[in-house]
């Protein structure tokens, strides 16, 4: 059989020109030193394009930012009143986001609180809003339904949380939340809110936010960042990461290697995480003071991130890793300010594979995780004094 790749011709069979070539070429013409790598790269490029097209067809996505208005000076976002839009991430279903007259993602109207209605004001960012979760499946809507059924009162959740809100933004929304005359203020966070939502400048200048004109464009022009942004936008890479990280061990291992942001899983916490917790302590203290002054109880809800949930369930942690450090520290901060801590992590840790309930690449909890979070909220509210919900007759799946 003829075999051009062979190149194992004896020297006698080589042409005079070939004989002048170095031995390491093995009889290959010099031009192949360029042609073959270019051919390989070209093939990879075409395969990459084909994969990207395939991924975009198989896993479509839809941007959803037309309903949200960012208040960059105060660091929070709000929905436009009565706005409805559809969004979809490649990993999840199509989700309709609709906002009430106040721009909250709530089915209940946001006017004066009707008599015989108990109201919860929910603050937070994407997690609190129920990003990538259909409204009926969000933990806010589920909590509302379960409590209404079990308390003999109409319970409504006014969901002020919105995608893109920082924790400083949450701090600035406190007055608006209290103006709704709620029976409870619930602040929902995930570790990434602490990681991204506490810019030191914003925390320092929280009482005198800069005018919008002083804010930069926010567009970073570094070519490396542009490349990283391109890679992040690639649907094929997103789906590749989705499938690779379906493997729990691989995901946790690579997550722990992904830098300082993951240090909330380490014991002791890193200095930057200590700084974040100190800033959060400051903000929560001032929010709690306002809330207590208004006579409204306050609760802090925490849900674990995907790697954290996986570690909590696996019980075998690498050296120096402890997924419970952050919930424990947040609990201490909350207790110091008279805020009830609702840690849904404990319910996640009881599941064999809780990480499957959280979107692999996107990182937000899906509908299943929202059900667990709602159970944790209900369980905590019903099981403790200090809110009207204490004593509601609800069979807790958590207990």
């Amino acid at each position, binding site marked *: *059989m*003829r*075999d*051009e*790749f*062979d*190149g*194992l011709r004896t020297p006698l069979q080589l042409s005079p020109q070939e004989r002048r070539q170095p*031995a*390491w*070429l*093995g*009889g*290959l013409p010099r031009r*192949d030193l360029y*042609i*073959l790598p270019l*051919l*390989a790269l070209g*093939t*990879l490029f075409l*395969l990459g394009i084909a*994969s990207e097209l395939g991924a975009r067809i198989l896993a479509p996505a839809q941007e959803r930012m037309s309903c949200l208005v960012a208040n960059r000076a105060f660091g929070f976002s709000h929905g436009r009143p009565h706005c409805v839009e559809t969004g979809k991430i490649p990993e999840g279903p199509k989700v309709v986001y609709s906002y009430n007259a106040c721009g909250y993602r709530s089915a209940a109207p946001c006017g004066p609180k009707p008599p015989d209605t108990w109201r919860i004001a929910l603050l937070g960012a994407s997690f609190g809003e129920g990003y990538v979760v259909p409204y009926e499946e969000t933990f806010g809507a589920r909590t509302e339904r379960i409590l209404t059924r079990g308390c003999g009162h109409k319970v409504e959740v006014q969901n002020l949380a919105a995608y893109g809100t920082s924790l400083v933004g949450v701090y600035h929304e406190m007055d608006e939340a209290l103006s709704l005359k709620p029976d409870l203020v619930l602040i929902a966070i995930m570790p990434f809110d602490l990681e991204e939502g506490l810019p030191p400048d914003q925390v320092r200048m929280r009482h005198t936010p800069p005018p919008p004109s002083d804010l930069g464009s926010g567009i970073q022009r570094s070519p490396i960042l542009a490349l990283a942004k391109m890679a992040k936008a690639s649907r094929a890479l997103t789906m*590749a990461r989705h*499938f*690779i990280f*379906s*493997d729990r061990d691989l995901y946790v291992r690579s997550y722990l290697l992904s830098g300082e942001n993951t240090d909330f899983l380490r014991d002791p916490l890193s200095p930057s995480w200590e700084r974040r917790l100190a800033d959060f302590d400051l903000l929560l203290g001032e929010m709690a003071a306002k809330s207590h002054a208004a006579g409204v109880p306050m609760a802090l809800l925490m849900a674990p991130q995907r790697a954290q949930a996986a570690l909590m369930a696996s019980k075998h942690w690498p050296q120096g890793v402890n997924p419970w450090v952050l919930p424990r520290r947040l609990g201490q901060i909350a207790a110091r300010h008279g805020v009830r801590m609702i840690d849904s992590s404990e319910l996640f840790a009881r599941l064999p594979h809780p990480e499957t309930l959280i979107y692999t690449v996107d990182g937000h909890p899906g509908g299943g995780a929202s059900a667990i979070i709602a159970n944790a909220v209900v369980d905590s509210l019903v099981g403790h004094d200090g809110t009207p919900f204490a004593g509601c007759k609800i069979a807790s799946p958590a207990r």
Partner: protein
Amino acid sequence: MPTASAGFLLFSAAVAIACNLSRHPLWRGWVLLAANLAYLATVSTDPSAFLPFAAFLAIGYAAILASGRRRSGKVLGTLVMALTLGFCWLKKYWFLSGLGFISSPYVTIGLSYIFFRVMHLVIDAQSHREAGRLSFLSYLNYTLNFTALVAGPIQRYEDFLKTPPPIDLCIAGRAAERIVIGLFKVLVVAALLSTVQTQATADLLAHHDGPDRLKSGLVAIAGYPIYLYFNFSGYMDIVIGVARFIGMELPENFNRPFSSVNFIEFWGRYHMTLSNWLRDYVYTPLLRVLMTRFPKPGRDPFLATLAFFVTFFLIGIWHGPTAIFATYGVLLAVGISGDKLYQTALLKLWGRRKYRALAEDPVYRAVCRGLTFTWYAVSMLCFWADSDEASRILGALGPGGIAAVFLLLLVAATAALTVTETLRAAALDAGWKGRPIMLSRYTRTVWSVVLAFLCVSVAMLMHSPAPDIVYKTF
């Protein structure tokens, strides 16, 4: 460390770099030994688990030296018998259960292949001085060669000693292409076939009725040999490619076995190093003994048939110590000796010219190809199913179902293999300026990149790792 894994490839790359730092044989020898021991160390963390393995290796070396020093049939017979018994005892063959076995777990990885290598040296030491005088370093590297430890190929010592031409771009290109093809076979084709075949077996045992049952039976029985071929030959491609970077040339183990038109040809193309070993050390000596005992010329074909039967029965029982593997051996032996008898009878009946004309007829060849595959696939049932599962499968099909599956398999295999052969010939014929396009280095570069891309993509999409190399267990 699975062969089709990034870990193995990285380990091999490190060994290849270290080996190529110097061409001095001693340097290469010690680097290889370190690599072989490091590879073995990944098998078990318990040093005591290596003791029986090490003892077998030490006894093997002593037997080779003894065979080289005392050249006599008696000595050789004793050594062969002792080594065979030792091997069977370590592999816990049922007929030695009276002796009692070691109860704690111990390493047996690659023991069968080590046994073949040691036996070859013990026998050859009687006639070749080289084999009887090998150094312990060389012996360890030959028997423990990490590229061929897990599942072969069974290389001859004289071939192991040969130094292939130094690596250049063409050789490196071919070796890399070979590794990519191997990875594609193991990680993509074999993994998908394994899923299909396992599902079909489960469906068959779930008692579906009528056509569904036949379909499941057909897929389960036909699927396994194809899966095994891709799994095993893919492993071979990887280790042959890897070994070439290290400066070794491993023998080929497969040569398109399903293109064979009879069982004798099939075993010349499938697991070739095992077939060749058995031909050299079992079939040929046995036939020689038989022909000496029964020297009538007319009996030769029948004696060859008997020698084939014994050899292939041994192949069957080599695969495992239980009764089902004896059945497997009988089926293989019936296939090959039946083939030999059929050829002998036709030659006698029709004469050489008429037989040759028939053997060259394309339709006859296609049917023979289908029949060879079918018989092999049916025999394989005893290979992949244990006694209980095999009887449940046969029970689920029933006598009519078994006959129907056999016939359907024959028709399907004949058609599929004919199409495959035709397409392959057409693809190789397609040329430009008298050169076959499919064999061009440019086509092959593109093809290799596509396969590598598919390997990565499928490995990502699969939620479970690809099945390990099946022959690792033998």
